[in-house]
């Protein structure tokens, strides 16, 4: 996969991966946003499961 927007360093400006491909930039950007949002949902799910467990089992025996 050729991600380089340049073929020479002479006169190069924005040279990051896919800098010349707006479609690919949109995919990576939306992917990063999606990961962050998923992480929040995952956090909520983890907490709900933890609270459900402590409600049904009471204080864990380690205490």
């Amino acid at each position: 996969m050729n991600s380089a927007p340049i073929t020479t360093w002479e006169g190069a400006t924005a040279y990051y991966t896919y800098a010349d491909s707006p479609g690919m930039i949109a995919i990576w950007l939306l992917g990063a946003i999606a990961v962050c949002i998923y992480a929040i949902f995952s956090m909520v799910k983890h907490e709900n499961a933890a609270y459900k467990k402590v409600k049904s089992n009471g204080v864990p025996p380690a205490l």
Partner: protein
Amino acid sequence: MEAAELLTRIEALEASLKMATTVNSEVFYWWCTALMVAIHAGFLAYEMGASRAKNALATGVKNLAAFAFLIPFFYFVGWYIYNAFPAGFIPGDASGALPWSTHMGPNLEDQASGIFWAAFTMFAATTASIMSGAVIERIRVSGFIILAIFLGSVVWVFGAAWGWHPAGWLTSTFGLHDIGAAGCVHMVAGFFTLGVLINLGPRIGRFNADGTVNEINGHNMAMSLIGLMLIVMGFFGFLGGCIIYTGDTWMTIYNTPTTFSAFAFNTLMAVAGGMLGCYLVTRDPFWMMSGALVGVISSAPGLDVYYPPLAFLISFAGGLVIPKLHNILLTKFKIDDAVGAVSVHGFGGVWGLVAVGIFASGYPNVEGPAISLGGQFMSMLVFLALGLIPGFVLSYILKMAGLLRCAPEAEEAGLDITEVPVKAYPESRIPAFGDGALTPAE
């Protein structure tokens, strides 16, 4: 020497000087950013120490998660807001700050955007972390993260665009002077936190049925003190990042000339003043170190112009008053702010902004009128509203959605054993409740 050869040499020297200036600027903000990371190490240690042992790791997870979320969200929206909204709520042209702009990645023609974005990202993470300590031991991490993202990537950034920007409307209209960000960072975060605390409520056991207060001691005061000292160290990166490097001189964020000597004199004198003020009224090492923060915040808006003993006294006065305001919030208004963030940052910021109006009126601005008490006061009210209203509204929505506060059973059992898969102190029995964890406050 031929004239043409001389000209070539001069051009080469000029190019070399320009490169040196660019490199110096990049290196300067790079190390400011690194120093600001120490603020987050400090918040981590300080808040984990201020938590009871049963909640130490959950508190740490909250801080680490805030740091991890704030960085991408400031990239997604925060940097654009700062650049687009100095005039209010109507956006100006800031297309270069949009996340798909060619300036928002490696670019050989732009050696400024990334390094300034990084410094501002650390400012953003700091702002969100100010709320973090106040809400420990009962907030849901997910709810906190939503609040932190909103505060750090949106709310304070409007404050920064309005009052911590060369073209911000608070400066051009009121002549606001707030070099060290006491308003947009500390006040906005402090009052946002107050709005959250109103909806969040106190920790279980903090108040008795008759309204009297129980002390809830953290499990490691030593760790908290070291954390607070780390925050003070990180402030030197924070305040360094408030100064613009132009190559031949230093400028404030309002484009007025300044020197590092000015900041060095007044920052250190302010730290000392705040510490001594808090010591005299509390004799408590936790408050002494919080007093260092109070000191910096109290003098932050005028660090570039104060006579150093005046900065010392302004911060000393802040140190005398802030712990008392914390007690009033606790005993009269039943606000359980576990680390005094509302008082230290919110009221400290109020005092800092007003103090510049009292003691530094008349200094000219490049944009807008000269510094005045009225202008500082009006700007202070804007920052207060900007923090308090969104903090209250958003936390109320989260409360209604059941996302603000953890289950009471989890709170009583301890959030570590409920939510965290590892143990902070595996060879110790952690008291969940009792065993001296709760004592009546003096």
